[in-house]
Structure formats: structure tokens, C-alpha cells
């Protein structure tokens, strides 16, 4: 992706960022300790499994750049996945089912945006509320049960390949490209930097801060809808608890990637590396047979270590 060269050159990083160090250290560590880690199949597995998280972490980067937060993104992903499965079972149409997932994402994204922008409810509170709503609706629709029996054409989206490349990687690469272009080559992206950096600048330029906020959160919702497609395909079913904690991973990936929570300083490539670092960590710990509860603690520690490295460097 030659666009990345530009990102590096235009960013205030004439130094190796903490996330790169963390990623290299993790790869070396797991490469030495678990024999299966460096096999091509395992690496492909890490990348494929990281795609769902990337789809959430990309909009999360944009949202955090505006000094906002979206805690609902994992629960919205879950509910979109449920609605996708329910729709395809009811109508038999994969297209309709996919549109249903996107519609769920868009509605929740717009809802978040309108509440935050028009009613000045802090993003933390708003999205905590919509997290509860989306989670509750998922349980309500499914009665707490998994939705199974969806057609194999959906499962194919996760396991199939195009020109030898797995579909999830293709979708994730497209999502990265779209987010990159949005951020750096459109008015929307330019104003995202201003939302976090200096809202006064937007007001002086007669640009609606509220309108921008609504769009930012709507973007997050739609991406959660796309992620729901991958998630449902991967599990070949929909689970009302499948996305629990995904917002934690997404925020962790953004933080590990070096996007600051103030002044509108975001780094998309950092988020990509952060997502991969999280994927490597989970995969490596799985190979070492570390229980998943301990894995969550390790991710928490990873966030702190990455930010600590960045903090050390900026103090100098």
C-alpha cells in the first residue's frame, strides 16, 4: 500500500513508534516460544481473525480523533449480526440480510451521533446507553439462543478466496483504503482533524460541528454493520454474546497504535499495526494454551506498555 509511505512522511514521527516495537517484540517472543507460530497457515489465520477487529478499530480511530468514544460498537456488531441471520432465515435473501445488518449499524450510528451532537450528551454516556440497548435487543430477538442454520453462501464470505487472497483480507484492505482516503483526501477527513484539534476553526469556517459529529458516528455504525457480515460468516451463525468486549479490543488497538485522545492526532497505520499486535498476542497466547481470561489481562497490559513507550519518547 504505497499510501502508507505518505502517512509516515507526513506524521510527526521521525522515530520508531511504540506499536512497531511492541509488534516486533511480540513476534520474536512467540516465534521463539511456540513452534507453530511462524507457519504460513498460522500467520494467515492471525490476519484473517484480525479483520473483524480492524473494521471496528478504523472508525474507532476516527471517533477518538474527534475526542469522542464509541462503547456501543461491539454490541451494535452483535445486534447487526443477529438481524442478518434472522433476516436470511426469514427471507432466504443474502442481499436483504446484508442490508439489514448495515441498516442496524447505520441506525445506531446515527442515533449515537444525533444524541451526542444535538443533545450534547457526552459520547461516553451516550454510547454506554446504546451499548445496553443493542445488547438487550440482541437477547430479546434471540431469547438468548444462537441463530443457526444460515445458508453456506454466507460462510463462504469468510472462508473463500479471491485471486488466492482470503475474502476477509480483501474486505479489510478495502476498508483500510476507504478510511484512509476519507481521512486524508476528503473534506470529511479534514474536518475530523479539526473536530479534535480545534472546533473553533470549523465554526469560523462556517462548517457545522454537529453535522460532522453525526457523520462520524454514522460511519462507525456502518463499519460495525460490515464487521457483522464477517463475524456471522466466520461463526456460521449469530450469537447474542459474540461481540461482547469487542469495543474494548477496538479501543485498545487504537490506543496501542498511538492515536492520541486529544488534539485530533490520529494515525491509521498505527491502528492497523495495533490490531495486528492484538491478533498476534491472542494467537500466541492460544498456542501457549493461556486461558482467555488471562489473555484479556495481557491485552490490558499491552495497552499500558505501548503508551508507556510512547510517553517515554515524547518526554525526551
Amino acid at each position, binding site marked *: 500500500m504505497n499510501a502508507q509511505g505518505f502517512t509516515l512522511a507526513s506524521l510527526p514521527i521521525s522515530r520508531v513508534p511504540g506499536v512497531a516495537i511492541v509488534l516486533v517484540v511480540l513476534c520474536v517472543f512467540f516465534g521463539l516460544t511456540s513452534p507453530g507460530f511462524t507457519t504460513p497457515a498460522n500467520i494467515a489465520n492471525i490476519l484473517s481473525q484480525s479483520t473483524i477487529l480492524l473494521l471496528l478499530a478504523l472508525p474507532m480511530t476516527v471517533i477518538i480523533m474527534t475526542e469522542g468514544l464509541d462503547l456501543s460498537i461491539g454490541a451494535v456488531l452483535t445486534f447487526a449480526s443477529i438481524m442478518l441471520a434472522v433476516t436470511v432465515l426469514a427471507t432466504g435473501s443474502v442481499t436483504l440480510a446484508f442490508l439489514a445488518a448495515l441498516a442496524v449499524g447505520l441506525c445506531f450510528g446515527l442515533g449515537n451521533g444525533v444524541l451526542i451532537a444535538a443533545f450534547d450528551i457526552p459520547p461516553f454516556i451516550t454510547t454506554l446507553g446504546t451499548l445496553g440497548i443493542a445488547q438487550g435487543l440482541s437477547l430479546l430477538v434471540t431469547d438468548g439462543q444462537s441463530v443457526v442454520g444460515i445458508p453456506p453462501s454466507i460462510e463462504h464470505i469468510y472462508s473463500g478466496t479471491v485471486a488466492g487472497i482470503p475474502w476477509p483480507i480483501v474486505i479489510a484492505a478495502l476498508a483500510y483504503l476507504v478510511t484512509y482516503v476519507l481521512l486524508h483526501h476528503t473534506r470529511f477527513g479534514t474536518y475530523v482533524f479539526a473536530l*479534535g484539534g480545534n472546533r473553533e476553526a470549523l465554526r469560523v469556517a*462556517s462548517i457545522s460541528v454537529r453535522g460532522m459529529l453525526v457523520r462520524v458516528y454514522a460511519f462507525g455504525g456502518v463499519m460495525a454493520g460490515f464487521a457483522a457480515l464477517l463475524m456471522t460468516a466466520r461463526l456460521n451463525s449469530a450469537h447474542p454474546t459474540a461481540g461482547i468486549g469487542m469495543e474494548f479490543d477496538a479501543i485498545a488497538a487504537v490506543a496501542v497504535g498511538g492515536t492520541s485522545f486529544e488534539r485530533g492526532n490520529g494515525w491509521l497505520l498505527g491502528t492497523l499495526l495495533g490490531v495486528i499486535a492484538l491478533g498476534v498476542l491472542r494467537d500466541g497466547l492460544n498456542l501457549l494454551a493461556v486461558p482467555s481470561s488471562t489473555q484479556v489481562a495481557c491485552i490490558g497490559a499491552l495497552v499500558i506498555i505501548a503508551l508507556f513507550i510512547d510517553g517515554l519518547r515524547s518526554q525526551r
Partner: protein
Amino acid sequence: MADVPLFELRGISKEFPGVKALDDVSFEIRAGEVHMLVGENGAGKSTLMKILCGAYRADRGSFFSNGEPVAIEDASATRKFGIAVIFQDFTLVPFLNIAQNIFLGREFASRVPGLIDRRRIYAEAKRVLDGIGFDIDPHEPVHRLGVAQQQMVEIAKALSQDARILVMDEPTAALSDRETELLFAMIARLKAKGVAIIYISHRLSEVFALGDRITVLRDGRKIASLLPKETTPDQLVTLMVGRPVDTTYTRPQRPTPGAVVLDVKNLSGPSGFSDINLTVRAGEIVGLSGLVGSGRSEVARAIFGADRVTAGEIRLFGEPIGESIEASTRGGMALIPENRKTQGLALSRSVGDNIVLAGLRKMFPTGIFVPRRALKAARAVIDKLRIATPTPRRPVATLSGGNQQKVVIGKWLNAEARFFIFDEPTRGIDVGAKSEIFRLLDGLVHNGAAVLMISSEQIEIVHICDRAYVMRSGRIAGELAHHELTEANIVRLGIHQ
């Protein structure tokens, strides 16, 4: 054409509750001219500029653009007339680059629908920057620029929107000498292009070096409009001062000053002050004067222990303290901050709660709060300071400014403070309540306390203080004994000659 001003304000008046900020002020600006606007703090310069850029609406007065009568209703109207205010950093986005900042909100569309033409933005930005002789790569992100460069980006941004009148409010305040030279060179180039500049300054050297015309404001009135060659720095100072004396309060006889309470030696700090030496004795009110931004409040915060210091020593009653609010308050120091609503009071709590706040540790050493005792202490303070509230349970937010200020003072009285720093004690307090605050200050020193008072109102310092220090650019420019304490002397020490 030459005798029609680019823009003209006629008979502008503006009143705020209790203050006449501007009274029948007329002002004009011509192409290619640098018009200096000078006056003391509170003379009305900023209000006038806020009216010019549409942030405030004038109560009375009219505007003329190229001789045609026009109306200024909001900020967008002024842009139409080519007026732009150069803010220090208010409208720049740190993690966008120079070009993106210049054209923020006016991005050129690319041939690909929905995308912006970045190459054209850079090319146009380069053209604008070249036009004002600012040699810098427009790809440079703004957060990496110094203050002076950011200012030039603001200027470029304004000019790219066809601004013909630039308003600069103390543009050199945060600049080094070298950067100031660059700015002056830029101003010369802008003049040559026919841009008009309204320049607010407290530095007399700048006023004479740059100004084509000088307008002096005092107490919201235009005192004079003259050419630099017609006047001298001394004459300007005389024009700027001479505000009427508040006759509602006369200073009583003070006791002879006692022992040294506060002794500050060679204090320097990262917030922009250095080598500060001052003393305050018991029974004394000492003024700390100087222009806004001269470092007065920073020194006060450092003495109180709220900010870091890099060198020097602070002694309170002979004991060294510093860099710790806890040590200061335990030693009997109190800071009555400039902004009592955000820094001095817990606005949503009651009068009583606020009064006992700072003295909690002394009143309840065991850590267990006894409401009855707190209420009793609060009542005592309310009676002593005559705070107008029916009950200590009333929310402090419902009180008037003067009474809120008394609550802040009462808080520290209850904490048994013996040394008080007042930062702008009369800010936002109406005229009648001012003399009562002064009486309170007098009462404090009569009981042996010591007071350091910061004020932008030179006349207050003259009126209330026994002596005063005057700050300039983060240093003590001089000390004035009681017989030297005049407004003109304060202004002379406080401004750059």
C-alpha cells in the same frame, strides 16, 4: 479615493451591566496604513475590536465601508467587508498542515467526485505564502510551528479570504525579538500591498516604530488620534492615564508595618517570570501591578505553590515553602483567585459549605465532619463579613458577585489565614460593592494580616496599597514607595519604552 477611509466606525457606544465600555468612539482605517490603538487595561480597545469583527453588537453607532453605510450583524458580515482578526492560535488545527489550515472549509474539489484536490490546495497555499514573503513548506503540520509562524499562517489564511483590514491584538506579546523582526517585515510588505492594519499594543517602542497613526482610548472614550511625529512617548502615557478617582472610598490610616510575612527571593518559573524579589510585611497592603500578561498572576500562583518554580526561595513567616499548596495554606497563606466562580468557589454548594472548605483540616482534625460545628463557624464568618444571605444553607451561586467574593475571603478567614493574595479582587463586582471589598482588605491588615493585591486597575493600586511592585515581561520593573505611587508612574514602569 485616497481620502475615503477603507472602513469607518462612527459614534460607537457599548454598555455592559454597570460599565460603559465604549462611549461615542469613532475610528477609521485607511488602505496601507498601520493604525495603532493604545490605552490602559480596560480602556475599551478589545471591546471596540470585538464590535468591529461582529463578536459584540454596538448599542449605538454606524459603520461605513468605503464611505457606504453598512451594518455589522454577525461575524460573517465583517468578512464581507474584508475585515479579519488575527487570533494567536484560535483558528488553527494542530494536526493539519499549513495548506489545509489556510483553506479549511474552502477546499478545492478534485475531478474525482467527493475528493479534494490536495495538489491544488498546496499550490494555492504556496502562492499565498509567497505573496506575503513567508518562505515555508505548506506541507508542514501546524503543531510543529512556533507561535510566530502560526501567526503568519493566520495572516495568510486571512489574506487568502481577501482580507484588506487585519486586526492584530498585541501580536508580539508571545514573540522573541527575532520573531518580532520577522513580523514587522511582514507588516511592511502588507502595507505596501495596500492592506490596512489595526494594531493594538502596549509597547511604546512598537507604537512609534510601526504606527502611521495612533488613537488613544481611555475609559471607553477616544482621547486623541494623532500622528507619531506630533507626539512623544511621555505625552502618550499622560494621555492614557488620568482616570477619575473613585471617591466612594477613602483609605484610612494604616498601622506601622510589622515583621516581614512574605519574603520572595530570586524566584523564577517556567510559566514566564524570572528573578522576582518582593516582601510583604504584617499590616501592609502591597500592590503587584503591570499589564495583563506581564506575569503577575503567574507569580501569585507560584508563591501560593500552585505552579512549579525553577529557582529562588519563598519564605512565609520565616519558614521556607514552595511548590506545595498544602505547605502554603498550612503556613497561613490564602489565594483569592481572579476567577472566583471556577477557582474560588464550589458553586453548587451552600454558603456554609464553602466557608468551612479550606479550614476542614483544622476544624475537624479527626476527619469526622460535625455539621453543627461547621454551621456555627459559617454563621460567625457571615456575621463578621456581613455576607448578605438569609442562611448558610443557601447555594452560593445565588449570591451577588460582591457577596460571593466575601464568601471566598471568609473561607480563608475561617482557615485562620494570615497572608492573603488577592488576584483582581474587584473583577466583576459593581461599584458600590467595591468599596466594601476595600474596607474588608483594610480590616484584614488592621488585624495584623498581610495582603498582596494584584490589580489591572492602576487607580485601585494607588488608592488602596501602601506600596507596589510593577511587573513587565515577567520581571519586576520597579518598586514604588507610597509617595511615588501614582498612576503615571505605574504605567511608565509597566510599558516598554
